[in-house]
């Protein structure tokens, strides 16, 4: 799916617009950026309830295209400015983390990790 599809599925508001037509295949949801940096591999979407600029920095280091703030979080301008600088899309969804992840998963986005 594309980021544009994600917007529709999550009834999301676009707070910063990067490439909405970029293809995304995997996502991760976490409020711990330490875990995102440690365990995430090749995910292109980050769902989080954490709102500070390090969310954008973390997504940048992981080559992610899109950040989704869940539960209608208020997002500071410094976060949006940084995201715009990095051509990253920032979305805000009214859904909570579990539901937002579930909606994306059932629509075809995977977690990108196998458990053996």
């Amino acid at each position, binding site marked *: 799916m594309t980021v544009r599809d994600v917007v529709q599925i999550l009834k999301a508001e676009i707070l910063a617009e990067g490439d909405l037509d970029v293809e995304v295949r995997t996502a991760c949801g976490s409020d*711990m950026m*330490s875990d995102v*940096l*440690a365990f995430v591999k090749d995910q292109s979407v980050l769902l989080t309830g954490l709102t500070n600029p*390090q969310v954008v920095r*973390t997504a*940048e*280091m*992981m080559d992610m295209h899109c950040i989704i703030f869940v539960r209608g979080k208020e997002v500071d301008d410094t976060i949006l400015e940084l995201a715009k600088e990095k051509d990253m899309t920032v979305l805000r969804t009214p859904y909570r983390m579990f539901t937002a992840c579930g909606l994306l998963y059932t629509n075809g986005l995977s977690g990108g990790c196998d458990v053996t």
Partner: protein
Amino acid sequence: MSTLHFDYVVPGDDFTQAGAASSDVKRKLKKIGCSSDVIRRVAIAMYEGEINMVIHAGGGTAHVEIDPDKIYVALEDHGPGIKDVSKAMQEGWSTAPDNVRSLGFGAGMGLPNIKKYSDVLKIDTEVGKGTTLHMTVFTDRSKAGGD
């Protein structure tokens, strides 16, 4: 390509600025055409180090050398030093205060993650004096361990 040198100051009093040096290095590596895998490994390892310097040591300095066959990053701080390096290298072991966890860090993954993403990691640390991390990422990972 001759060796390129870059130096950065990592401010310790502004958490919002943490990662700015890593971001700049990432941009530079992209510009000179490094592979995306190498760029990502350098960026993540350096970013974790930067965050650590801000959380634990009140900031520090970063020195970066870019060679055709390797990228070397030295992160130096004058913080409290690491009392027990072997414990600090264990996943999940953390001395970060709760307010740091509320910012999304301090899960005890910093140093293990730096080790995971760099090919060579050397830690010089002295309690009360500070810590310097020396990390190297080879552009050809098959050469790892040869340094």
